[in-house]
């Protein structure tokens, strides 16, 4: 079961890589694979159980898969430490502002829609 879903995921990734080389050099192969799989699921109308099992098992271990690339930081330790506070400052300010803005906007839009819905009924 798991293997069949995994096969599809790998196939779509390879399909994405082929498309990346042939047609769309600006998009990474796995992203094209993601879009293709999403379109395929829409067309098919359902996600098979084997695909769901494979996807959820892989995504459960996503943090583990991210560890080796993250270790690459050790190559840049000096550059990061040199600009540590500037980097953290930029990240904190932009995160705080965009987080509050996003939440506020979504809340406003939902409230507006509720009010409009009430007025109409």
């Amino acid at each position, binding site marked *: 079961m798991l293997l069949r879903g995994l096969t599809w995921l790998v196939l779509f*990734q390879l399909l994405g890589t082929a498309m990346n080389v042939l047609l769309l050099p600006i*998009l990474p192969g796995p992203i094209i694979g993601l879009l293709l799989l999403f379109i395929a699921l829409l067309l098919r109308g359902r996600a098979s159980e084997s695909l*769901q099992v494979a*996807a959820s098992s892989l995504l459960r271990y996503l943090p583990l898969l991210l560890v*080796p*690339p*993250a270790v690459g930081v050790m190559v840049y330790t000096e550059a990061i430490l040199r600009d540590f506070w500037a980097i953290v400052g930029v990240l904190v300010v932009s995160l705080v502002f965009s987080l509050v803005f996003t939440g*506020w906007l*979504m809340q406003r839009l939902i409230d507006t829609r509720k009010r409009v819905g009430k007025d109409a009924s």
Partner: protein
Amino acid sequence: MTLHWEAAWQAVIHHPLFGVAITLAAFQLSYAAYERTRWVFLQPVLVSMLVIIGLLLACGLDYERYRDSAQLLTVLLGPATVALAVPLYLNLRRIRELFGPTMITLLMGGITATALGMALAWAFGAERMILMTLAPKSVTSPIAMLVAEQIGGVVALAAVFVMITGVIGAIFGPELLRRCGVQHPAARGMALGLTAHAVGTAQALQEGDECGAFAALAMSLMGVLTAVLLPLAVSLLL
């Protein structure tokens, strides 16, 4: 006899599976520590990273060697990215219910999160390489790393920026949103998932189902949009 010990030790640390072994061990240890304490600063990826860097330095191995020997794990990142299509598809019904607000928030919030970070860094006089590395900071790491590589940033640094952003968002996000009067679970989830990706989504899941679902939705949509539009925008505008 000392000679043989030395030879065995060298054979072990240069074995092609050594990287996989220390990654698996470090991750499970950090995960157990996080599970036990639930302390937000103990993000498993962050702690594993520090443990492995320590081990590599102690063994006198450089990053290139570790990267080669951990390839068994990194090669799965591609299929894992493809796998994000499945939760996205399964949440389609929820998206349809709040389609308008979700899409508007996604576009406005996504542009703000991306452009503000780049603008601030530009104002600080950061070079192009750093700008391109900062651009995908609000996106889940596999996508951020792919995008950073695509637009000329540093992949490993992008992962660090993503990590720092996620941890800050998960630590301060819920309290900030509460103080600003954002109570609707969908709105809180959107904010956490869009700006603080997987770490924010994990935080949102603790607040409840609806909040978590919207965080996962915002995270995957933001990831796809960034992956599709950011390289395009960069090649057109800069």
